[in-house]
């Protein structure tokens, strides 16, 4: 008996890491459609006649859900028919327009990849970095400054310098809570949140003062030198840029670092079992600081990527909450670099499609936040998903350790 079970079990164990997030996403969309129906006035209107014409009210509900998700899909991936037509016409303008949505999704996914990796690296070491948003701002400030002030450099030097500046800024911002935790035992959750506020106010002050573009009435910085701009591959309006590939490269590097190097082994061990790490002679303080700074550097890169690749300047509140969404995203990606990339692409797609959904279906962008929140709720409480789909729990391997709670 037990022999015949073995193969299916092996399969289930392999599928489980993918199956649960997939079902969580699916379930979130199902619940999301409920919210769509409940917030749509025309549907509610149709349901007033439910007793006399149940078919009509149901079809109204269907229609609302269909329009919403249809426009979400079209807004994020584009319409296949249009793509084919554009390719057949051979007109570059038309091709550009047809593929615009999907490239925009990737543009939105890029900062998510960086910021998601940032939070994931923290989780792997048992640190909860809520400060990714602040580190992202500081990264953006530093790289925009390098982008503006250094003149006459070739792009091949200027771009890496500007990116490094962003990483360094983020790392510096994360170093403060890291050293406070390592030396004084102050909890990083509190201190990274505090550092967020400092970062926001600092960027406001800079944009109204030293970094302000003189000729503008708004709090925006000057444009960076063209030599610091991340190259784009297609003519306007397509903004798809090199940052996406940098992000993929960084994700691969983080995978290698975490799983193939001695330092990565130490960081993961500290996260998985700090007592055993100490027993094994690892320096816990050092690893906490390194992991936190690496996390900050990655968040800083997210900010740098936005200013060097998309905006080419720094504006107040330029981030759409990438740093905060990335916490959810790291959870969804199980704190694994490849999982984070997939989750980032999903989040980017939802974000960029939601604008069209709002225009076409009059569904507020916030519904995407609801769906994201539901995804996270289902990921964080896998028991719900298991109960809905009658899945049996199988022993889990090495999971990410999320946070060791308060105090210690």
């Amino acid at each position: 008996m037990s022999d015949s079970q073995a193969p299916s079990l092996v399969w289930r164990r392999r599928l489980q890491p993918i199956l649960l997030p997939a079902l969580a996403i699916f379930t979130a969309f199902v619940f999301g459609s409920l919210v769509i129906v409940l917030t749509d006035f025309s549907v509610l209107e149709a349901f007033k006649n439910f007793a006399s014409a149940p078919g009509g009210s149901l079809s109204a509900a269907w229609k609302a859900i269909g329009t919403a998700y249809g426009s979400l899909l079209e807004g994020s991936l584009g319409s296949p028919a249009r793509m084919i037509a554009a390719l057949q016409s051979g007109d570059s303008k038309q091709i550009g327009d047809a593929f615009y949505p999907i490239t925009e999704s990737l543009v939105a996914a890029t900062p998510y990849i960086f910021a998601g990796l940032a939070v994931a690296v923290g989780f792997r070491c048992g640190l909860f970095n809520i400060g990714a948003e602040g580190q992202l701002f500081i990264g953006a400030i530093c790289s925009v400054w390098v982008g503006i002030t250094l003149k006459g450099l070739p792009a091949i030097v200027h771009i890496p310098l500007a990116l490094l500046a962003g990483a360094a800024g983020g790392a510096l911002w994360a170093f403060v809570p890291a050293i406070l935790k390592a030396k004084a035992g102050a909890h990083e959750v509190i201190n990274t949140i505090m550092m967020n506020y400092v970062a926001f106010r600092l960027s406001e002050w800079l944009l109204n003062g030293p970094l302000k573009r003189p000729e503008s009435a708004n709090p925006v910085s000057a444009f960076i030198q063209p030599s610091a701009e991340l190259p784009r591959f297609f003519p306007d309006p397509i903004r798809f840029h090199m940052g996406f590939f940098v992000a993929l490269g960084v994700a691969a590097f983080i995978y290698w670092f975490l799983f193939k190097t001695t330092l990565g082994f130490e960081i993961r061990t500290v996260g998985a079992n700090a007592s055993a790490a100490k027993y094994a002679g690892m320096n816990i303080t050092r690893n906490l600081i390194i992991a936190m700074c690496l996390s900050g550097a990655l968040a800083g890169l997210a900010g740098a990527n936005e200013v060097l690749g998309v905006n080419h300047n720094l504006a107040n509140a330029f981030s759409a909450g990438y740093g905060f969404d990335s916490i959810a995203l790291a959870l969804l990606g199980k704190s694994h670099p490849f999982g984070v990339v997939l989750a980032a692409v999903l989040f980017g797609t939802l974000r960029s499609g939601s604008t069209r959904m709002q225009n076409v279906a009059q569904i507020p962008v916030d519904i995407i936040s609801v769906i994201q929140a539901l995804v996270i709720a289902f990921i964080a409480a896998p028991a719900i998903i298991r109960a809905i789909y009658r899945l049996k729990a199988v022993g889990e391997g090495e999971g990410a350790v999320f946070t060791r709670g308060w105090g210690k």
Partner: protein
Amino acid sequence: MPPILELHGITKRFPGVLANDHIDLALNEGEILALLGENGAGKSTLMNVLYGLYQPDEGEITVRGKTIKVHSPNDAIAAGVGMVHQHFMLVPVLTVTENVMLGVESLIGGVFLDRKAAAARIRQIATQYGLNVDPDAYIKDLPVGLQQRVEIIKLLYRNADILILDEPTAVLTPQEADELFKVMRSLVSQGKSIIFITHKLKEVLAVSDRINVLRLGKVVGAADPKTATETQLASMMVGRQVELTVHKEETKSGDIVLQVKELRVLDDRENMMVDGVSFDVRSGEIVGVAGVQGNGQTELVEALTGLRPALSGRAEIAGRDTTHANPRQIVELGVAHVPEDRQRDGLVLSYPVADNMVLNTYYLSPFARGVVIQQPEVDKAAAERVQQFDVRTPGIATSAGSLSGGNQQKVIVAREFSRPIKLLIAAQPTRGLDVGSIEYIHGRIIEKRGQGCAVLLVSTELDEVLALSDRIAVMYRGRIVAVVEAAEVTKEYLGLLMAGVDPATIAKPRKGEQAQAVF
């Protein structure tokens, strides 16, 4: 008279493992039934099925002839089945009465706790069964033996007639264990029935009425304690002939490897746990540290291995001052450490066996070249060690957490013994392990001694200390109260020293009996 409790054909499968294979078991009213078996034999699974923590795949449970379904411990309690776990489920900052009431509070007017009524009932239970304990005492102030009594009282308070005791003597001194046996006899003489789970053969023979032996998920036999011998029982458990006594060659002890002078160590709450301890361990010698849990052994070992700072004094390993050295420096001096809490300190349970095998050598050649871990080398070494140290695991990629306790310990021993070492510090190396694993680990420790390694063995198992050590240091309240030659003392004499009796007042110990290993 029909049995009070019967298990019929209980079968429980886990992925890839048949933990219980059609087990039949009957417990008669008023008897102590011992359940013997190695770790992984299925004892705990069976008891968890009975206690409602697992659902069996097949089989049924009857109490007094009636079939019952046990979906939770509450169902078990309702059917009169209670369990004392190896780890106590008590709230340290509450009193005995409050702990006993917890979950079945008697109330005045539906709101206020009726402590008086509960305390009265506890006193009555205590006198009836000889379980003396002060109902108003706080759990945190009670010694372990009394805490265990509170656990038993909790069950009696809930009117349990069938008591399951899971390895109850693991945490007790020999004197406390004797007390427990008296209580057990008193319980059964008044109609209670007990299932006694243990791996200690002496205790089984001393206290039980009947013995059932489990191996690989099956009941492999029954024995009568009046006629059975330890060797017979051990062979039944393990399924082969077992060597019960430890054979030690005479060795010449050599140079001092570990020297400790006036060492003082504080615990996390700043209590002086090690209070001016001095001793030394020579190469080729095993020095055992005996003592009741909590008398400073843990802190002593932590200080010697760099896990806890020493307050004052001096520790020297191989002539080097290691008083303030960190764990890595100490490991690099050639020290192996088998930690007391293998799951907390010794292993990363979520990691595969392979990574655990190199937990403290991952940065050295050949496992790393520069900063890059050479996974093929790690896997190769892990596979060799799994083979060499007989670790029973589906593979080196299996997570350490899914292995049995004995095999987890073997992973640690394999890791620590596979590098050249001068000093072995082993804390509770066989705690909670089965006969086969204990035999194996004892053999490996003796082998290290034979190779000229100095060994510091810390154990609360007196039999183990007596069987392995050349010299024994007894620790009581942070001090070493006596250092004796192992061959010259008896277990009873050590038991008195461990309990804090002044050595000067104890009659000179008789010439020791042949030391025997722990079972």
